[in-house]
């Protein structure tokens, strides 16, 4: 474990990438994600990598595709509108089964919107904003330390499944400084990237490599899509992650990811003082959604999001319609207070 | 006979007009305006040419010129 550092979330993400062996970064500045690109603009070349400030997010994601096709660990980062522009590229990368890491430091949308923290890109990230049948693994940290850890993990998962992995944070987490210590990379065994292009003379088998996603033949294409489907099913089984906070005896649960999950913990502390048995489920992997976490015998769930309600669909799908699933959201860069959430718990579940 | 009037609440105290004035008769006020900026002020009306150099360079259109 490295030494303790006080770092912004964005910087920690950038440094974690370097420590995970990221060799190329392609990005375009945008508030509140710019520290990622700023940090890597000097740090990456220091670490022997290559940094390109692309002409646009569209160019950046396609550079990532090129770099990932070479079997190199590569990353791009942006905030909401920029992520919208990357959707075609992400779909291509998923279709080419290339590993890479994507950072979205969400801000308020739709449109130009505002720069405040938000979680309105949940659907885009989790259901897939690009065209066609593909999935992006999505990880949502709630502390700077976790952001760093999940970025390192993201590189591993990307390599493991040959799939893009997104780390989904928000403006608060991006701008916030907390103490972080970088772990040494996981010792997981990762598949050899012998599909990568690097000039056919470099391949042990002397065969040339082709990375494309074009199918002229529907039958072959269907086979490929079904292969993707199987891979996704496998990920859904193996990679659900979440944190539970005082759920053991809980009668009510707040469900919130990222910043909301943290605020909810404060709410729980307050609730417990009042004798309300409240707990928190904080989904960490948003896709695969941690359905396993919801095999609980409680009286009700309150889903809290910085949006009009998006994750709540997945909560409902996980919970079924036997237990009530309520919603409370703030939007536009506004963030609920712990008091506010407690108020909501009481109101929604008639605890007054 | 000429003069300038600086709209003190509009001025951001950037000092560009100070240098641009051929007569160097613009200064900075001692007190900040309500936005925390120290506005420009005409120091010596008698010397003003009404040449509008100051107004032309002012990024905040804070200067009116009279002649």
């Amino acid at each position, binding site marked *: 474990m490295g030494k303790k550092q006080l770092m912004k979330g964005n910087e920690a993400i950038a440094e974690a990438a370097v420590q995970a062996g990221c060799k190329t970064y392609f990005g375009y500045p945008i508030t509140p994600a710019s520290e990622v690109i700023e940090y890597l603009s000097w740090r990456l070349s220091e670490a022997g990598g290559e940094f390109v400030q692309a002409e646009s997010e569209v160019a950046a994601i396609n550079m990532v595709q090129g770099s990932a096709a070479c079997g190199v660990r590569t990353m791009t980062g942006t905030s909401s509108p920029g992520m919208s522009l990357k959707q075609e590229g992400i779909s291509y990368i998923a279709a080419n089964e290339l590993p890479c890491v994507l950072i979205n430091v969400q801000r308020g949308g739709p449109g130009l919107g505002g720069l405040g923290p938000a979680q309105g890109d949940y659907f885009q990230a989790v259901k897939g904003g690009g065209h066609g049948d593909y999935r992006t693994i999505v990880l949502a940290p709630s502390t700077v330390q976790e952001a760093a850890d999940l970025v390192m993990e993201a590189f591993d998962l990307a390599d493991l499944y040959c799939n893009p992995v997104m780390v989904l944070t928000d403006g608060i987490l991006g701008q916030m400084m907390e103490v972080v210590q970088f772990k040494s990379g996981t010792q997981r065994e990762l598949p050899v990237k012998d599909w990568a292009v690097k000039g056919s003379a470099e391949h042990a088998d002397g065969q040339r490599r082709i990375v494309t996603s074009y199918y002229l033949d529907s039958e072959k294409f269907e086979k490929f899509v079904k292969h993707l489907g199987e891979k996704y099913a496998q990920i859904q089984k193996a990679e659900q992650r979440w944190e539970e906070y005082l759920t053991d005896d809980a009668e009510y649960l707040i469900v919130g990811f990222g910043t909301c999950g*943290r605020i909810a913990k404060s709410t729980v502390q307050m609730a417990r003082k009042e004798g309300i048995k409240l707990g928190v489920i904080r989904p960490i992997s948003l896709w695969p959604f941690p359905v396993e976490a919801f095999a609980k015998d409680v009286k009700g769930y309150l889903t809290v999001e910085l949006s009009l309600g998006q994750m709540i669909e997945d909560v409902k799908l996980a919970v079924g319609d036997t237990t009530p699933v309520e919603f409370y959201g703030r939007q536009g860069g506004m963030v609920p207070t712990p008091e506010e959430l407690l108020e909501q718990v009481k109101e929604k579940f008639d605890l007054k | 006979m000429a003069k300038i009037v600086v709209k003190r609440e509009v001025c951001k105290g950037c000092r560009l007009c100070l240098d641009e004035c051929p007569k160097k008769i613009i200064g900075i006020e001692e007190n900040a305006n309500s936005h925390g900026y120290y506005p420009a002020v005409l120091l010596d009306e008698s010397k003003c040419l009404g040449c509008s150099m100051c107004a032309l360079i002012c990024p905040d259109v804070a200067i009116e010129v009279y002649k």
Partner: protein
Amino acid sequence: METRMLFAGFGGQGLLFMGKVLAYTGMLLDKQVSWIPSYGPEMRGGTANCSVVISDEEIASPIVNRPDILVAMNQPSLDKFGQAVRSDGVIIVNSSIVKDVPVFSQCKVLQVSANDLAHDLGSVKIANMVILGTLLKETDIVKIEDVHSALAEIIPAGRQQILEMNKKAIQTGFELSV
């Protein structure tokens, strides 16, 4: 123990730095810390603020809605956040700038003419450190020596003079009787 602080004022008054010094000190003491700035286009001109939490345990919400300590470096900040301070909390006001200090029944209010004191020390830019000194004295979050150590790490070697000025300003604030 957990202390939740809000530093608010105009951009350029060194609020973010003040918060950072405290957070850094907390880290050196192996405490949990968080520091959140306001950001965005408002950064240019307008108001700026930052929230700092220093805690012995894991920090649940890092967002400070109800501060234990509020530093108000200008009038709008005091007007906006004063009422939110917890009972038994402390408000430290830069009285060089904030002229209209209402009564806050729930908490203690300290007025420090930080700009004037800083001016006397050589630069209004260190008004923030004067306030920090007072804050350190009035609360027991961290010790003044720890802040000095933190400062020594934060301020790049070779900028000894700045370090010394900052320390002096902290000392001045610390020794004030308000």
